């Protein structure tokens, strides 16, 4: 297995270097996507299937759509920063190498035995009623991070929306190409039912096995993007109440249950022991929808059509 790991690491580093030196923008991005997929494999080798799913869905999937669309929009007029001078580049290369070296040194000198919270997490796991410790960390032990992170995603979305011209504020983004190729339209009709089933499945098993809100949300987001890009259903106006409700619904339910903890459990974000699992599943369900809507709208970008009044 060590040989496999070494090959994987070598490949990852080669691809990363290729992304940096490749002159053609699109080739670089496609190389980056390959890098993202291989990274998923690395996560499997690190015994982190939850992260592997997230990495492949987000790092290899949705980021890919985002970057390729950006490349297409910027082609020929990509904004260039002032190019670095040769000495500047050398200095930065030296600095980056120093950071890498320091980091490698730190990784090699970590104290042994390695400190771990795995036993503590396993001990606290029954109180949550969950079987997947990663989900328990995300939605119980460190739920405050997850809650704030949801707000971060929504904030990024509002930030993206705020980049629309004033006249288009509140309007709909545009994802549909001028002419939808037949196969894409076909895929847009056939795949989403399967995708939705897979998304729901990932959310459902996430309580006890690898999977969970983020992975499921990303799959659902991809399906929605496919439908919008195939021109089967136009993106909604950003002021549509249903969209806003889905976006805010997950965090609002999360907050409501968090505040109820003051009255019915040990305080903010604590769950009553008997109800922990159903409550967490309810939060996860709402969050999955919120994540799906937010990620898809993040890829779709700011409004490009005036809102329907």
């Amino acid at each position, binding site marked *: 297995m060590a040989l496999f790991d070494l090959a994987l690491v070598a490949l990852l580093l080669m691809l990363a270097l290729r992304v940096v030196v490749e002159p053609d923008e699109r080739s670089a991005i496609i190389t980056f996507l390959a890098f993202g997929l291989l990274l998923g494999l690395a996560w499997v080798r690190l015994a982190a299937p939850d992260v592997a799913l997230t990495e492949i869905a987000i790092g290899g999937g949705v980021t890919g759509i985002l970057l390729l669309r950006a490349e297409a929009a910027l082609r020929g007029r990509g904004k260039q920063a002032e190019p670095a001078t040769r000495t500047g580049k050398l200095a930065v290369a030296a600095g980056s190498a120093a950071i890498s070296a320091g980091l490698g040194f730190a990784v090699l000198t970590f104290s042994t035995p390695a400190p771990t919270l795995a036993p503590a997490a396993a001990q606290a796991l029954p109180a949550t009623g969950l079987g997947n410790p990663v989900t328990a960390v995300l939605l119980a032990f460190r739920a405050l991070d997850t809650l704030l992170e949801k707000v971060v995603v929504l904030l990024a979305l509002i930030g993206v929306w705020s980049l629309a011209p004033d006249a288009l504020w509140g309007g709909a983004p545009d994802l549909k190409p001028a002419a939808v*190729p037949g*196969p894409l339209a076909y895929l847009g009709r056939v795949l989403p039912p399967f995708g939705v089933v897979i998304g729901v499945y990932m959310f459902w098993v996430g309580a006890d096995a690898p999977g969970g809100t983020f992975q499921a949300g990303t799959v659902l987001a991809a399906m929605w993007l496919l439908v919008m890009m195939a021109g089967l259903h136009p993106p909604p106006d950003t002021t549509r109440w249903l969209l806003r409700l889905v976006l805010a619904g997950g965090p609002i339910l999360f907050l409501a249950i968090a505040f109820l903890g003051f009255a019915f459990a040990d305080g903010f974000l604590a769950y009553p022991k008997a109800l922990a699992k159903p409550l967490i599943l309810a939060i996860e369900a709402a969050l999955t929808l919120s994540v799906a809507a937010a990620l898809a709208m993040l890829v779709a970008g700011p409004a490009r059509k005036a809102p329907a009044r």
Partner: protein
Amino acid sequence: MSALLDTATVVLVSVGALLFLAGALGLLRFPDTLSRLHAISKADNLGLGLILLGLLPQSASIAGGLKLVCIWLLAQLSAATASQLLARAVHRDRTER
């Protein structure tokens, strides 16, 4: 019985992997996009099919086996669409030129 199944797995997965290798070689060696596409899609479909077929006896449950079959079907669907889209793009570029 299990030894027989294990042997089948080893053989099928090895052949599948070899097909992938052949597809990758084709991708690197063939001169133009369409023939590369041809090589990679053939090898991929068959290779993945053989590997999944080889893994089927190893799956612990019916549900697990069904998941493997689903993976193959979905991969078929996406690979077919992707090749179609790529071929169209090649065609469009040629006619434009």
